[in-house]
């Protein structure tokens, strides 16, 4: 092949199966991931609504729910094992199949190649495989609901030995827990395949002129996220293999000697429960950034686009993204301050943890800097980006409490950390996903979403999540412990019941608001206004091609990139934005106001 000809990517598929099911087109795979996440997020949401129901009215009988869940609601009242199963599955589904899948597998797959001017991922077949393994993984996870004993009750962190001992330790810890581990192991494999594909694509597939420092920040975050996934998921895979062997192979990696469970002596010897925590959190903390980093990229992209200004401090943003990602590998111990970790290492983990506040502050500062002096257009996507910044501040800053050893002691395992991580890696990341959806939907489906409905969705959701999670911090301070099926057993939690009811009410409103999104999404796909090539007057490469893009993304064009990713408001340009492929501008008088 010659250098000038565009490489003929795999030819466009003709059969339905190759086009929509076993497709190697990164755009189809991205949409497949997105729909998978959509199914997962509404499942996870439903589980959280059920949990909120029990927390607010623990003794209340719900006969109609008994009809749907005859086992979990025996006699109309939700059993504590059902509550814990909901809790485990809510966490697992949300963390793995929503927060890891939608931003990276969904939008990353769809837009990373387009934004760097590539025709597909470096390894399209691998990409397809990665999706189908994820799909299988989700199937196995959902199967855990239906096996004897039900879903596991050990939480999404599956702390050993509770998760290692089997049914003797509680319901759901038999085959339900096995399926959980197998599902997670499959998910690890799928993520690894995806990650090495993303990294190779970014390094090797950029079009002419797309230097690293001209890449959109979204690409930087997907790239960094892929590195995190590549290095952290194998450790979780290792932990999963060890745990499965403990359960099925009779080994004792996590089960110490001399355990007596319900008066039954366990014949294992000498394993270490702390080992599970180390391995799990070595994965688990980078996972937090895997969930939130793409959201940061999307927020940057959206704020710049709709403030009609270049991103403030592009280089600092890139450095901050990398710093957050890399520091994320050295702070896992802050999840273990009260685990019996050596007090010295706790000190080191604590200081490193607070150090992450520095790049996070830079990012916040630069987002504000991007708004400063702008001409803000309030699209729904922009509202969600602004909401992201607000939630990122609210959710991130409370990490200053939890990162300190002595403050964490009292707050550990209360609702305070629950509020903290829901705010930051849950809701803020979801706002990133919503922002991305409203922004890129026209490109992905060729039609616009309804802006009015979208804005209503934003207002209700933004108010709702704040109403849920800000009071939850206070509940944590008052001592409400997490993973409690009810808070009626303890006197110090008695004053908390009104708060539980308030939060449940707020959760219902928020959950209902998501139906607006669903309606908008389905309506948009079939009835939405036809989208133009570049409805937002944006600069990055996805906006120079048709909506939706042709099979090879750019219709055979070979692109040359001349400009940075966020050239808005350029003084000498004919329009207020300069697309990355626009010809170079004769710069006469403009000076950089910075």
């Amino acid at each position: 092949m010659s250098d000038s000809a565009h490489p003929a990517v795999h030819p466009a598929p003709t059969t339905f199966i190759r086009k929509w099911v076993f497709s190697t087109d990164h755009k189809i795979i991205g949409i497949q991931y997105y729909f998978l996440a959509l199914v997962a997020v509404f499942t996870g949401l439903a589980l959280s609504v059920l949990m909120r129901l029990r927390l607010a009215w623990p003794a209340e009988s719900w006969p109609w729910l008994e009809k749907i869940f005859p086992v979990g609601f025996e006699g109309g009242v939700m059993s504590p094992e059902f509550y814990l199963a909901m809790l485990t599955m809510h966490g697992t589904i949300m963390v793995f199949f929503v927060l890891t899948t939608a931003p990276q597998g969904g939008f990353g797959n769809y837009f990373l190649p387009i934004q760097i001017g590539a025709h597909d991922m470096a390894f399209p077949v691998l990409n397809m495989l990665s999706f189908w393994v994820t799909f299988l993984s989700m199937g196995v996870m959902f199967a855990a609901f239906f096996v004897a004993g039900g879903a596991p009750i050990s939480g999404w962190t599956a702390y050993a030995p509770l998760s290692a001992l089997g049914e003797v330790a509680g319901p759901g810890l038999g085959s339900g827990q096995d399926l959980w581990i197998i599902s997670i192991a499959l998910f690890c494999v799928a993520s690894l395949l995806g990650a090495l594909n993303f990294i190779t694509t970014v390094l090797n597939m950029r079009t002419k002129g797309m230097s690293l420092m001209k890449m959109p920040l979204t690409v930087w975050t997907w790239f960094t996220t892929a590195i995190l996934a590549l290095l952290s998921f194998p450790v979780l895979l290792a932990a999963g293999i060890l745990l499965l062997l403990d359960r099925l192979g009779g080994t004792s990696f996590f089960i110490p000697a001399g355990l007596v469970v319900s008066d039954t002596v366990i014949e294992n010897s000498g394993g270490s429960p702390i080992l599970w925590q180390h391995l799990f959190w070595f994965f688990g903390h980078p996972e937090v950034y895997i969930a939130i980093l793409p959201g940061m990229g999307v927020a940057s992209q959206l704020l710049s686009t709709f403030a009609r200004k270049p991103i403030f401090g592009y280089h600092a943003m890139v450095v901050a993204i990398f710093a957050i990602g890399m520091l994320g590998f050295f702070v896992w111990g802050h999840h273990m301050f009260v685990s019996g970790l050596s007090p010295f290492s706790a000190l080191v983990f604590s200081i490193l943890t607070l150090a992450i506040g520095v790049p996070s502050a830079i990012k916040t500062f630069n987002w504000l800097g991007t708004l400063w002096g702008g001409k803000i257009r309030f699209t729904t996507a922009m509202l969600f980006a602004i909401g992201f910044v607000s939630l990122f501040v609210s959710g991130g800053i409370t990490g200053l409490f939890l990162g300190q050893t002595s403050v964490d002691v009292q707050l550990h395992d209360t609702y305070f950390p629950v509020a903290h991580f829901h705010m930051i890696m849950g809701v803020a990341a979801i706002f990133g996903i919503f922002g991305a959806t409203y922004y890129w939907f026209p490109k992905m489906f060729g039609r616009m979403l309804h802006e009015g409905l979208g804005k209503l969705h934003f207002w209700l959701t933004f108010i709702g999540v704040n109403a849920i999670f800000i009071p939850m911090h206070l509940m944590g301070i008052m001592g409400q412990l997490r993973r409690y099926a009810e808070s009626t057993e303890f006197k110090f939690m008695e004053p908390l019941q009104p708060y539980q009811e308030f939060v449940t009410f707020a959760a219902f409103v928020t959950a209902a608001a998501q139906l607006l999104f669903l309606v908008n999404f389905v309506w948009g796909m079939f009835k939405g206004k036809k989208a133009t090539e570049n409805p937002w007057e944006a600069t990055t490469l996805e906006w120079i091609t048709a909506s939706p893009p042709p099979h090879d993304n750019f219709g055979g064009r070979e692109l040359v990139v001349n400009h940075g990713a966020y050239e808005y408001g350029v003084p000498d340009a004919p329009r207020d934005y300069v697309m990355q492929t626009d010809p170079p501008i004769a710069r006469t008088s403009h000076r950089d106001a910075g």
Partner: protein
Amino acid sequence: MPVAIAPPEVKPQTGREDRVPASGGPGGGSGSDGGPGRRGDGGGRRLGPDSYQLGMWLALASISMMFIGFSSAYILGQGTNSQWRAMAAPPYVWVNTVILLASSLTLELARRAGAATEVKRWMTLTCVLGAAFLAGQLWVWGLLADQGIYLSGNPHSSFFYLLTGVHAVHLLGGVAALVYLTARAWISAARVPAGTSLNVTAIYWHFMDGLWIYLMVLLFFWR
């Protein structure tokens, strides 16, 4: 030259990170036409190593992290587990080690051989050695089981089975890739592997070889 870059076929032999590009095209390894590795920044500057090789190195980084996870568990267990009884290395593992080292050598000879017949010969020998190693491992496990040393025995034997087992699963992927390349070469003279596909397989194979040495040191010489 093939007219187009074939879709990088990927064979998931083991359900792990192993992957082998199957149709890199003859002579497509180095130079300016290596697969979909493309150009950036004007001037025809190549932006990095060939995509397949890069992908392989990334896969190996990932596999390394998994074994680092296992190793940290091993070292922690060795330090804290009261039930730890070190088992002696079954002598046959050293024979296996020699077989594996020899297979790396023959693979390297295949890679450097000029004539197609020689490439095919060395490749075939590599396949045989790889298979012999796996068979040898099965035999070692059987031998240990006969002596009453099981996976669930004491922590050290658990780790022996675990580490050699996970290694064997990875090696099985490598053998499958080698067999595939070799069989293809015998069937069609035009498809004697060279360049990318062979290079990438060789990187993987040598890495598995090095990993084996590391595991033996960890299991039987560490401390």
